[in-house]
């Protein structure tokens, strides 16, 4: 029987990694990810797991050292946030191009400047095109489950791509939540040892991360894109397996009271739970509104999102990052482009909110939904709005 404990989510993320039989971790501490780094290093130092914890001098080094470790066939983990993720950026497309299944926890935090240690998604959004499988957790249980699932997905022979689990900084990392932990035996059953496609070894020299001339580069990019698009099939399989073994279901797009609703709020990450309360209150008042939560950001769940919003008249897409000078926020742009070719496309409003740790309350979601209802009548006057900004 699985144990249910009250635990801070960052600590729980490290505990989940501790169950995954990793070989190498290289984690540089940064707020609000530090508890993951500290606790994982404790797990290793206390001899609870047989792994190497490399105390690197920076995030650039943590991802670089894991690149090497993963190439030798090791199971590897890192975690970071904000500026740390920006500092890793250079390596992220290399890791995915080398098809190395590194798993990373990201405690999402605003990117400077001005300096902010609080939560939004401006750190992960610039990594969007790096070729990493990218998912968002909504609560502590999902962080634990998705961390374990990620190793299996990333290492699958038909995937071989790095994966990140996004955990809203403070708003999720520092919450104490009831979490059900699978036992070591259960995890061993779910997650067998990594069977690498190829490894760096002096007895059998191969080259990884080589060079490509212009007559080859485009083919390599196409192959990488197909690999991440096709990874969705394996992600779905692994989630089904998880559900069978642990009883908790995972879908690329989750819905909450969305059936037949005219207006749908769209969220990504931990704010989904706040939005649920807003939906309850609005439905009580007779407003036809529901909620759609994007769990899988890359590969983008195109079919699933289309199916989830079928029949809706307005989508109120929320964004927690700004694409300065762009058409909309990053999620807004994605969703709008998805529906461009659809005959019966919904109106799409886009609210940029919760930047740099600004609270988004139930009341705020109610207001956004009401604005979307209004847009249905009056049409859309602007591509996106900075929701709740003074001025």
């Amino acid at each position, binding site marked *: 029987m699985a144990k249910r404990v009250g635990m801070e989510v960052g600590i729980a993320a490290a505990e989940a990694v501790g169950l995954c039989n990793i070989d190498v971790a290289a984690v540089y501490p940064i707020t609000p990810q530090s508890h993951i780094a500290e606790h994982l290093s404790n797990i290793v130092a206390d001899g609870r797991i047989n792994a190497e914890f490399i105390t690197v001098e920076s995030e650039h080094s943590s991802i670089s050292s894991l690149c090497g470790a993963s190439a030798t066939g090791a199971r590897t983990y890192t975690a970071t946030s904000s500026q740390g993720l920006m500092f890793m950026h250079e390596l992220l497309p290399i890791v995915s191009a*080398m098809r190395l299944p590194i798993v990373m926890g990201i405690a999402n935090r605003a990117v400077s400047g001005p300096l902010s240690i609080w939560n939004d998604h401006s750190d992960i959004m610039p990594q969007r095109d790096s070729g990493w499988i990218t998912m968002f957790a909504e609560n502590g249980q999902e962080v634990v489950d998705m961390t374990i699932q990620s190793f299996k997905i990333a290492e699958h022979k038909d995937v071989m791509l790095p994966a990140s689990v996004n955990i809203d900084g403070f708003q999720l990392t520092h919450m104490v939540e009831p979490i059900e932990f699978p036992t070591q035996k259960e995890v061993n059953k779910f997650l067998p040892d990594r069977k690498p496609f190829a490894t760096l070894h002096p007895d059998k020299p*191969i080259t990884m*991360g080589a060079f490509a001339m212009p007559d080859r580069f485009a083919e*390599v990019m196409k192959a990488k894109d197909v690999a991440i698009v096709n990874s969705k099939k394996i992600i779905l399989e692994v989630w089904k397996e998880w559900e069978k073994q642990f009883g908790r279901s995972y879908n690329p797009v989750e819905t909450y009271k969305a059936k037949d609703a005219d207006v749908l709020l769209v969220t990504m990450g931990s704010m989904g739970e706040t939005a649920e309360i807003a939906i309850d209150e609005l439905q009580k008042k007779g407003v036809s509104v529901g909620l759609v939560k994007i769990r899988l950001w890359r590969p983008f769940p195109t079919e699933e999102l289309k199916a989830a919003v079928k029949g809706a008249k307005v989508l109120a897409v929320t964004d927690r990052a700004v694409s300065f000078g762009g058409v909309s926020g990053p999620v807004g742009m994605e969703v709008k482009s998805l529906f461009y070719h659809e005959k019966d496309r919904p109106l799409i409003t886009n609210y940029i909110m919760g930047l740099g740790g600004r609270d988004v309350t139930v009341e705020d979601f109610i207001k956004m939904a009401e604005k979307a209802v209004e847009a249905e009548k009056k049409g859309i006057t602007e591509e996106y709005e900075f929701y709740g900004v003074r001025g």
Partner: protein
Amino acid sequence: MVKEKWQEVSPGCMVFTPGNAREYHTGSWRAERPIWDNTKCIKCGICYIFCPEACIGQDADGYFMADLDYCKGCGICAQECWPGAIEMVEEG
């Protein structure tokens, strides 16, 4: 050179034949070739050390020359040869 389709690209672009860079002749890039004047050469070996293609070898008398299959004509040898024994000459 075999031109693979995207379906044929090895995962991660991994190369399983060590040393197959030899099959790629960087000499095809060359617009100028280095010509040695052995009367000026003092056999210091600087050209040999600096050649980024490692394509400079020594003949039986200890003088240096480039393997033109790989010499890409960068001119570094000529630039670095301080007695001025190497001249870059345009390919005809």
